[in-house]
């Protein structure tokens, strides 16, 4: 059995009005305190390299060529079946890495690379699966349109220069080095 001892109220507390005035002075002071609301469209969300936004395809800064070789690993890794890739043969045989033009034989490049943004769950599996460092999660979070077809993003909407994705790329490499994972070409 628990015996609750009530607090003995003083006379002014029993009168109730002084206590109400105390409460009202508190709420009045609260009116001038800084607001905690974020005015969203004007004040965007804070983003950094850890932010896992929408996936974007990296293109080389120098010539704007796409890094993707349409191997289909991200398509296979995607748990939401959001990625659809159609590959094609290419005779493009040079890519530029870090300023050096590397002779390298590239067999394939994507003819079309579609990500259905309505299906994408922003999990980042495509980023992990990619052997060519071609797809990364960007810090772009806003997604709105008037019809569903426009939300299936093609190559034109997905391409981003590497320099724009650099903070995320560096972050991914930092994490991978900590795990002692073999790093591929940077």
């Amino acid at each position, binding site marked *: 059995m628990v015996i609750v001892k009530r607090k003995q109220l003083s006379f002014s507390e029993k009168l109730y*009005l002084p206590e*109400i005035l105390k*409460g*009202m002075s508190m*709420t*009045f002071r609260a*009116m001038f305190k*800084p*607001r905690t609301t974020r005015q969203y469209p004007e004040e965007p969300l804070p983003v950094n390299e850890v932010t896992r936004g929408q996936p974007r395809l990296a293109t080389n800064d120098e010539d704007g060529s796409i890094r993707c070789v349409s191997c289909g690993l991200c398509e296979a890794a995607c748990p939401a079946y959001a990625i659809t890739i159609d590959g094609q043969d290419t005779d493009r045989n040079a890519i530029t890495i870090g300023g050096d033009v590397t002779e390298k034989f590239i067999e394939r490049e994507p003819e079309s690379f579609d990500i259905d943004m309505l299906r994408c769950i922003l999990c980042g599996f495509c980023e992990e699966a990619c052997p060519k460092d071609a797809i990364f999660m960007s810090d772009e979070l806003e997604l709105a349109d008037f019809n569903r077809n426009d939300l299936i993003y093609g190559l034109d909407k997905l391409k981003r220069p590497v320099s724009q994705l650099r903070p995320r790329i560096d972050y991914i490499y930092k994490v991978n080095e900590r795990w002692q994972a073999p790093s591929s070409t940077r």
Partner: protein
Amino acid sequence: MDMLITIGVIVAKLTCIYGGMVVIAALTTLAERKVSAWIQFRYGPNRVGPWGVLQPLADGVKFIFKEELVPDGANKWLFRLAPAISAMPAMMGVAVIPFAAASPFYQDEGPLAIASLQIDVLYILAFSGLSIYGIILGGWASNSKFSLLGAIRASAQMISYELALILSIMAVVVMTGSFQMNEIANAQGGAIWNWNIFSQPLAFILFLIATFAETNRHPFDFAECEPELVGGFHTEFSSMRFALFFLGEYCAIFVMCCMTVLFFLGGYHVPFMEDAPWFLQVGAMLTKVIALLFLFIWVRWTIPRFRFDQLMDLGWKRFLPLALANLLVTGAIASGVF
């Protein structure tokens, strides 16, 4: 010709005062949301127009386009009538509120009011007493437990607080010796310490608190009481009928604030300024009323709701004896017993 001028003056006064009241009631809804937001560290509506000033307009448009639902088993006629009945008393009450000592209109005697009666005070009290009918009919007609409970609570509450309300005013009436609001206000002209709040502080406190109960405001909003009764008497209402209940509520608050100002806060008189021009008097009146409206909103977002038995206890066992004693002492002093 005189006839035409008289009609024109009446129409002009009706337009100004009713238009002004509805605008103030609409802006009060905005102020309510703004002040509540500030108290809770938010911004409140700020998207429609500058500082969200056009928000009430947007709300009104939204309400008009909403579907009107009448629940099964509801009394259709009373259900449709109730919102109008609930908005009517406040609208009628404002007719006798004087906003300045002398009307600026051509050939218009008496104070700036739509109508100046010999028994202003009785008239306005009678109509504020009627405002409960809208709530009872709305609650009963909608054939819902919650609505009926809210309506019953509201009626019990109004009966208990009307007594304290009227008795606390009577002390002022006894002091002034008039049932006319402009005379009560005129008796408080000049210096600020002529205001009745200083000669009748107890009556002022009783009246103010009873006003909260009378207009169903926090901390006495048992008619609505969202956590217990969903929405109380307006649970089943939608669309413009719902909005009409709120218009009635805010108009009633406006009228009650006008009454408080007239009875206790010097009415339309500018402090330390006898015979101020009419626009200054209207300005003084509105300033005081707006300050009181702010108090209403401020209290709403500060104090939690009472328990119903606490409300009844407060009304019958504390306020009624206090108001009676106050009236007795005032009467004794006024009649020269002491």
